[in-house]
């Protein structure tokens, strides 16, 4: 087991819990998605795993080692690409590994090539489109040496078509190096298309209300997005999510 979250609770003001008794795990090489409505505390959950915040109750462990409040154990991809405007794309994708030790320039170049960004190695972030920036941000998190990658709604700011393109691209890259991924989203389609397993989070206080295994084989294709199984799964997830945003 890569990451384990056990009975984790968190509160900002000491009265109302934001997160309540959260339990889930991510296995080695597994793609796990946390699906929840906006404002359900998904980001707070990431802050806890990243060590910026400390849970008031429960244990967060990585490779069976407790990491409550410890930073630097995960590779992180934020909602905004957060590339440094004064660095070229190549220098930017190396930033994650630079912060935690060893830089691998050749690997970076190879990944940029695969992402179709080889011509932009020396370009600055403002010269890239939204999708290209997110690809650079994803490469940066792959290049970071930490084994667990935490992706925080990375495609939520992109338009529908670019998002679909990005999801396919992310799948193809991920299937090649199979890191453990914890992915956060509020899009059901995205969750089903990408994940091995999905946890549904309720609204305040957030807690895990459902766990769903996605049975589709890999590599996945767009056609699966239109299959019956896909729709059944989608219905199931929708039913689970519904009470979280109708109340």
């Amino acid at each position, binding site marked *: 087991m890569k990451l384990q979250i056990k009975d984790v609770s968190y509160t900002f003001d000491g009265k109302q819990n934001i997160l309540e008794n959260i339990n889930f795990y991510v296995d080695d090489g597994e793609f796990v998605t946390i699906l929840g409505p906006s404002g359900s505390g998904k980001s707070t959950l990431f802050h806890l795993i990243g060590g910026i915040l400390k849970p008031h109750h429960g244990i967060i462990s990585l490779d069976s080692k407790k990491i409550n409040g410890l*930073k630097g154990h995960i590779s992180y991809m934020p909602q905004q690409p957060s590339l440094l405007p004064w660095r070229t794309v190549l220098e930017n994708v190396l930033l994650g590994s630079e912060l935690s030790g060893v830089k691998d320039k050749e690997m970076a170049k190879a990944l940029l090539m695969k992402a179709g960004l080889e011509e932009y190695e020396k370009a600055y972030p403002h010269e890239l489109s939204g999708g290209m920036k997110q690809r650079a941000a994803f490469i940066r998190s792959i290049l970071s040496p930490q084994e667990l990658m935490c992706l925080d709604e990375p495609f939520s700011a992109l338009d529908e078509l670019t998002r679909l393109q990005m999801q396919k691209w992310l799948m193809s890259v991920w299937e090649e190096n199979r890191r453990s991924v914890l992915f956060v989203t509020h899009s059901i389609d995205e969750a089903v298309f990408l994940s091995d397993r999905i946890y549904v989070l309720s609204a305040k206080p957030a807690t895990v209300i459902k766990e769903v295994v996605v049975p589709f084989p890999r590599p996945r294709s767009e056609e699966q997005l239109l299959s019956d199984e896909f729709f059944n799964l989608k219905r199931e997830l929708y039913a689970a999510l519904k009470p979280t945003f109708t109340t």
Partner: protein
Amino acid sequence: MSGRKIWKKGAPFFLLLLLLIVWEVATGLLKVEKWLLPAPSAIFIEGIESFHSLFGHLISTTNLALSGFFIGSCIGLVIAALLHLFPGVKDAVYPLLILSQNIPIIVLAPLLVIWFGFGMLPKLIVISLVCFFPLAVASLDGFRQTPYELKHYFKMMGAGKMQLFWKLELPHSIPFIFSGLKISATYSVMGAVISEWLGAKSGIGVYMTLASSSFRTDRVFVAIFIIMGLSLLFFGIITILEKYFVSWKRKEGEKDEAAN
């Protein structure tokens, strides 16, 4: 180059030329005494004639201004970095920094001479005192205004305080630092001249005091123009350096302009 562009680049120059012409004609028509207000042409001629003796003064003032500017800027940057990294210290020290700018230099300068003699030290202190402040304030703003999402990424990746400073906050504030440098570069020339009034062997400030005490108004104006020229030159050099060091920012701006 289009007419508009020529106007944009040359406008200040045209205005200056116009003012000089008005000045020249007015002194001629109204027959103003030379010791009251000499004509620009007379000032120009005096400047050319005394160029040899001026050159030495110019060199020593430039030296003084540059050294003071360098020391003051370094102090400003270091103070800003320390105050930023130790917010507790900032609360205590920041008001004092502002107060330091309220001490009239004219009063402080003679005191410095009493304490440190007529050497370089009191002069450098005066220039540093006027130069450090714009830089400290500008860099502090730069450090503080680092975008939240970038800081957040660094923290989630486990970056320490020093990594955060060297890899994020410092590079982010470079455009701010250059704004501060431009201001303190122009201040440094004034600071140098004032500090030379205290007593120096050579320098534009010395030349100016001699000229005004002997009612050589034309020479006073020569000195004024030299000071202006020197300030402009410093400002220009910093601007060129800025273009080189923050090229990414300039390109960003060009893109915005193209989009409009």
